[in-house]
């Protein structure tokens, strides 16, 4: 599903910062992968490249068999819209739209008509137990509810891959466990998932843990989350 060949990325700020120094990574379809590393190690940078939100300087990135390089804004938008679902630490819900409207938004950009859009969005909200919250605005929702709305939004277009940047970063441990449970269930339906985290407890719930350090992959650890009791303390 994902194939990275010698990805390099330098930020040209006040002084150039070589953040990714040759990343090689394969993620197969249906895998549940976490990227771990200290703060500032380049996790988000890597995930943004995977999400075609940012570009890279060197190497090749293949997504679903297609080379992602020098895409036009329109092509990138289409890739993101059709193939990728995003989940963010700070949810990034649109504050003046209801839960339902937020979930339906990606479908709006696909040109799906209003009725069908709202029906599909409602389906996903229902799936995550948010049916009664459909008409509420984000500021009327709890952190866990917000993250579930954003998961619904990520899934509504039936993407091939979900990219989550610290999805539990703003949540307490109980809610984190719930969200991770949902993400695992989603993954179980066959959707590839890459989760960035700096928390070992979260990484332990994934099948493959990629350790990032100083811009390179230090090690890739195979993991069996089912040995973990995810209802227990994960932080």
């Amino acid at each position, binding site marked *: 599903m994902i194939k990275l060949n010698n990805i390099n990325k330098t930020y040209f700020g006040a002084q150039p910062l070589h953040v990714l120094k040759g990343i090689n990574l394969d993620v197969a379809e249906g895998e549940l992968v976490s990227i771990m590393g200290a703060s500032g190690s380049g996790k*988000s940078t890597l995930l*943004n490249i995977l*999400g075609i*939100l*940012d570009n890279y300087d060197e190497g090749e990135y293949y997504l679903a068999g297609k080379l992602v390089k020098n895409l036009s*804004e*329109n092509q990138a*938008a*289409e890739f*993101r*819209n*059709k193939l990728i679902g*995003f989940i*963010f*630490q*700070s949810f*990034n819900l*649109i*504050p*003046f*739209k209801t839960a339902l409207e937020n979930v339906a*938004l*990606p479908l*709006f*950009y*696909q040109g799906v*008509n*209003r009725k069908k859009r709202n029906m599909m969005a409602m389906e996903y909200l229902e799936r995550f137990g948010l049916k009664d919250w459909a008409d509420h605005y984000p500021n009327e929702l709890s952190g866990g509810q917000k993250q579930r709305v954003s998961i619904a*939004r990520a899934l509504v*277009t039936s993407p091939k891959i979900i990219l989550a*940047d*610290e999805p539990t970063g703003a949540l307490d441990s109980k809610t984190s466990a719930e969200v991770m449970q949902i993400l695992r269930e989603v993954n179980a339906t066959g959707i590839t998932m890459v989760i960035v985290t700096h928390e070992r407890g979260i990484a332990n719930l994934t099948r493959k843990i990629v350790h990032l350090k100083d811009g390179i992959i230090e090690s890739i650890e195979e993991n069996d989350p089912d040995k973990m009791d995810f209802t227990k303390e994960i932080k």
Partner: protein
Amino acid sequence: MFDLDNINEIWQTIARNKTRSILTAFGVFWGIFILVILLACGNGFNNGLQSQIEGFATNSSFMIPTNTTVAYKGYQKDREWQLDMSDMEAIKKKIKGIDDLSPISSRWTYNGENNVFYGIKGGNFSMKGVLPNYNEIDRCKVLYGRFINEADIADARKVCVLGKKVYEDVIGTDKNPLGLMIKANGIYYQVVGVIEAYNSKVSIMGSVNETVVLPLTTMQVAYHTGNKFDFFMFTTASGYNTKGLQAEVKTLLRERHDIAPEDEGAFMCFDLEDVFTMFDYLFLGIKILIWIVGIGTLLSGVVGVSNIMLVTIKERTREIGVRRALGAKPSVIIRQVMAESLLLTILAGVVGLVIGVAIMAVVSGIVGNTPSEDMMFLDPQIGFGAAIVATIIIVLSGLLAGVLPATRAIQIKAIDAIREE
């Protein structure tokens, strides 16, 4: 672009901040409102002035002989010369492009004594001897009877047509004037009609309302002037040039009366086109000024909308970034911002247009219900054309106001929103 979904999407963002949207839109509203009011007032003054000169053929010229100013062919300068009917024949024969040629004689009353009487009632009025075609140039309403006709001219009948005021003062409105005999400057004439000038503001040698009008031939007999008369008017046929005709007429008259070719002072010649052209330019100037002021006001409204929208876009960086991340193409973002600007501007502009038109319709009604001879302000409304132009300007303003915010909006990349600060 404006399907229901999009309108909803746009309306959400506008309605989200009602106060600010209203304040923003007010600039555009005010611009259009002022433009409409100014244009309507401009039209009001224009119409008022037009009504003052209405009724007078605008293509008429006047030619009055004055003393020569150049010695010529053995004649001294400062020589008096007079027009006669053979001049008219010659002009008709030799000059093309004249519609009506109307010789006139007039007598003024110098000392202010009463000179026109019916029985013992009298008044002080001027006299004019004219041909029937006088009515083609200085148009008159016939209140009673008829105007001077060809038979009157042919037979030099002792008949007269009274101006309205003459009739009122000398005969009195309680009597049918037709057939009565009045005495003017010592001679009796039978009244065959009463007339009123369409327009009392413009007149040649005194308003017809205060004139006893005689057949020109009758006047020539009464005052022993033979076939001479005092001055004439003519109208330019369509397709001919008034100034050119005036020059031709002068040239012909110079030849016939031994006047030096370079003697411009031997005529007093003017035409209403001069006056009208002047007013036309005046109103064109006023109109241009109004558009400049109106568009200027509107432009400051546009700048306001643009400015506030720029601020809004900055505030919405995250939202727009998220939209981009979710798959909104740049064109979608541009369209959304432009549509927001358009909707805001059009709403404000149309409200301004409607309120402006409504207010001026009320003003127009009030003005219209206050009839007055000297009304310099009439029907102050903008025409359909101007309303269309205003609407087009509103739409253009909306697009203009949206350009800068839209360019700013597409510079926002998804990554800008996603990056956790």
